Each structure stands twice: as structure tokens, then as C-alpha cells.
């Protein structure tokens, strides 16, 4: 009795269950994606966050230890004259400028370069290449200066190089990373001092 009806009902039910299941999987994937992005990205700029940078660097260093004739340039960028923007125009304006700086960095480095917001107005770019990217960095700096002429915004930077700057590449990865960042930070600070001296 009513066998055909039951079969059709079950087919319809199966179709709905499949649709619902697909949608459920889609939602789950989206949620995972969002959770991942929330975990690795900086809320304000959309760049990678410090946590992700360190995690990525760990894997990258392990890899580069095994690859010869290949270099990593760690570029430490610190904005110049950013503090007065916050003080004069407010934090909202400051946030807006940070977002725009992030956009310029993203657009002017290569798609596969890792760009992270390291601190308030500090950024780190991981640039894998054989050639020092100084020219590229200077171009980016020019673009930022042009865009924010009104605010007299610019940046100072320092570059550390793996393996060139590391005496013993077999030290612990974490220590190696800290050293690379410290060197780049120190070089950035020296440049900043020099630039201030020139301007003054």
C-alpha cells in the first residue's frame, strides 16, 4: 500500500537531507576559515599578525636550513611621524592611515611575501630572494611619502639576512628568529637616527 508515495517521500526527504548536509558542511568550512583568519590576521589592517609571523618564520627557517643559495630578507619597518597623527587627528584617523599603509605594502610587495603588523606602527616583511630588496623598499617608502605628504609620514627600516647574518645556523630556531628580528630592529633604529640627523 502507498509504496510509491513512501518512495517519493523518502526521495524528497533524502534530497533535503543532502541539501541540508551540504549547507552544513559549507557553514562549517566558512566558520573554520573565519576562525583561521581571526587567528592569523590583524583585525585592523588585515595583514598577518605577530603570532602567525613567528609561526611562519619557524617553518620557513627549518626549510631554509636545508636549502642552499637561498636567502631570507627580514625587513623591519617602523613608521616615522605617526605618533603626531594620532595626537593631532585622533586614533580613528591613525587607524585609517595604518590601513592605507598596509594596503600600499600589500600592493607593492609580491603576492607571496609575508607582510605582518608586528606592533603599533611596526611592520615586518619576509622577502625570500637572492637579491637584496633595498630598491623595492625605497620605492615603497617613496609611495608612502607621496601618499601622506600632508602628514609628513615616512618609515625607517632595517634588514637582516638569513643565513648571512647568523653565525651558527644550527642554533635553536626560536633563538635564531629572535636574533634575526633583533638585528633588523637595530638596523632600522640606526637608520631612523641617521634620517633624523639628516633632517635636523
Amino acid at each position: 500500500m502507498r509504496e510509491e508515495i513512501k518512495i517519493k517521500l523518502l526521495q524528497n526527504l533524502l534530497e533535503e537531507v543532502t541539501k541540508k548536509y551540504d549547507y552544513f558542511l559549507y557553514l562549517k568550512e566558512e566558520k573554520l576559515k573565519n576562525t583561521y583568519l581571526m587567528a592569523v590576521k590583524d583585525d585592523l589592517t588585515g595583514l598577518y599578525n605577530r603570532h602567525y609571523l613567528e609561526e611562519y618564520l619557524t617553518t620557513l627557517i627549518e626549510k631554509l636550513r636545508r636549502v642552499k643559495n637561498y636567502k631570507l630578507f627580514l625587513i623591519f619597518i617602523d613608521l616615522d611621524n605617526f605618533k603626531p597623527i594620532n595626537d593631532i587627528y585622533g586614533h580613528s584617523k591613525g587607524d585609517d592611515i595604518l590601513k592605507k599603509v598596509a594596503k600600499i605594502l600589500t600592493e607593492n610587495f609580491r603576492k607571496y611575501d609575508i607582510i605582518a603588523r608586528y606592533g603599533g606602527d611596526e611592520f615586518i616583511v619576509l622577502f625570500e630572494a637572492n637579491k637584496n630588496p633595498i630598491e623595492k623598499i625605497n620605492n615603497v617608502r617613496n609611495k608612502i611619502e607621496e601618499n601622506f605628504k600632508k602628514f609628513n609620514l615616512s618609515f625607517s627600516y632595517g634588514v637582516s639576512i638569513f643565513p648571512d647574518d647568523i653565525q651558527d645556523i644550527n642554533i635553536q630556531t626560536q633563538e635564531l628568529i629572535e636574533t634575526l628580528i633583533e638585528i633588523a630592529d637595530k638596523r632600522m633604529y640606526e637608520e631612523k637616527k641617521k634620517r633624523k640627523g639628516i633632517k635636523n
Partner: protein
Amino acid sequence: MKIKVFQSQKEVLLYALEDIKNQIDKNFNSYDFLMFAISPKYPYHDINYYIKKVFNTEKYIGFHTIDSFVNDEIVNGISTAVIKFERKGKIETFYLEDIDEDDAAVKTANYLNSNQDKVHIIIGGLGNRKKFGTFIEELSQLINYQPVNNIIGGLSSGYKGVTFQFVDSKIIKSGFVITTFSNVDFTIDIALGFKPYGITYKVKKAEGYKLYLVDDNRNFSYLTQSFMKSLDNFDTRYLWYIPIYIIDDEEGYVATLRTFKNIEKDYVEFFGPIKEGQHFKLSFATAEELLKENLKTAEKVRENIGYSDIVFDFSCIARQYVLEDRQKEEVEIYTSILNSYLFGFFTFGEIGPDKKFRKLKFYNETSLLLAMREK
């Protein structure tokens, strides 16, 4: 207690009642109470008059049912349970004509709370403004004793939502009648058999018996309509094969199912309350699965009570629909396992305890068994 059940399927009310009276007279010199399950095909306004005329008694209750059970038969006519106590057994009735009255739940709870040691069979109508399932939920909150293992029943069934109870010369449309048995041993159990399938839905918007939206504001009516695809001459009853299975109500004696009643553009109406925030799955059962549950339930009841004078079966009309041509097997299983007289009817919803006997619940698509004997 001497109980026997009789039936007549004569087309004329008076003839059917006289037919039953003749059968009773051959078996009983006197009796204490009569329970009538009456098909809605008979003129309801004549029922009280003819019962009194034929049986010359006020000690009865009657109620509508599309079909009733008499032992292992399904009857489309009138069925009567005749009760004669042989020791201390007693019957009394309590009824309310309108559950919309402000103090209806309080009055009923007071009656039940002061008769905790008795067993109560409650037979209600669909309700008017307030639905009976909602009334049961309200009543449940007011019952102040435990275990609540002595109240069971069902909603009488009728055509096009018209169903009445008959007691004390009254025709009750939006109320109920309780038949209370004293000095009896009893046990109850509930059979289900439906299994949940697929992924869980969450009720987003619901009101009373109506379900509007699920999940991310998905119109449940559209979803239900997708189940009806390619079904020629669609009949809402087809959806009785796939009731929704509410899963977060773990206190149910069995899972709480809700049977589809009506599909409108913006909502789907069920035969019981739906609450916002509830989770449910779709479900399905074959006749075989339902009958297996009936068997299991009957065996449990027998284990609990041993022998009984009478067994009552309150079985959902939707369950009977799903059983198709195997409807009779449900009562055949009950009577053969319990070896007792059986009286019952097709319900529009069942009333029984939760698993821990803490409160009353309103069920759909179940078969509810009460086995009883005089102390």
C-alpha cells in the same frame, strides 16, 4: 472487576446502542459504569439523549473517535466498555467544559493533586483559543506530586476538527472529561518506533502549534513543500510518515514527535506545541518498526502487572495511518500478549508521563497502553 467490551456498527445511533444493550444484558445483571467510543458519523446532539433512553443511566462518559478498538477489532461505529466492580473499586468523573477559562488548569490540578492514589484517564477535545496540548503543558506545571504515573489519555478524534465528549448530559467541545478509577493496580507504557534521520534543525520562530522559521530564518513551509514534490493528488496525511522528531526534550517517555496537520504559505501547523529554540530531525518509520515497538511495549506491560482485567489503547490516528493495512496487528499484539479485554480509540494526540514521571507530556504518533485490575 468484571469488564467486557462490546461494539456495534449499525448505521443508526439508536439501533447501534440497542444492539450493544442487548449484548450487555446477556453478560451483566448490573454494572457500575459505561465508556462509549462513538464514531462522529452519528448525530452528536442525540447521543446523550439516546444513551440515557437505552441504558437508563447517568453513569457513563462518551467521546468521539473516528475508529475504536474492541479487543482485536477496529470498529467504525460504537464501542462500549462495561465496568462492574467486584471488590473496592470505584469510578468518578471530573470534567471542564472550556479549557480557555482562566482557572481551568488550576481547578484540574487541584482535582488531580487531591486524588494522587487513583488512576485518571483524561479525554479531551482539540480546544478553542487554547489548544489542548498547551493546556496539558500548563497543567503539568501545577501538579504537585511525584511520581506522575497515574494520568494518561488522549484527544478524541473527529472529522474536520470537530470532536466532542459526552458526560452528565453535556456535549463538551473545548474541554475534557477525566474518568478516575480508585482501588486499582495499573501500569502504563508508550510505544513509538519512529527513528530520526539527517541533520538537526533549530526552531527559530514558532507559536502554539505553528512552526514558521527554522535555522537561518528558513521558511519551514517551503521546506515541507519540497517533501511533497512529484506526489500526485497530494494529501497532508502523506506527511504522517515523516513526523518531526524533537530531540532536545530528553525527558520524554519516548521522543516527542509532532505530526503535520496543515501547510500554509508562511507556516506549518502540527498536532502539538512547538517551541522556539527546540531542535528536531526528520523521521520515518515502517509499519514493521511500529509493530515491533508495540510488541516490546506489550511485553514490558505484562512484566509489570502480570494479569489485567482491561487494557486501554490510545493510539494516534497518524500512527494508524502509517500502519496501513496492518492496523489490526497492533491490537492483536496487545490482546495476545496481555491476554485481556482491550478498549481504545484513535487519538488526535496522546497524554502520558515523562520518562522520570515528573510531569505530563503531550505526544503525537504514539500508542499508549494502560493495563488495570481491581485491587
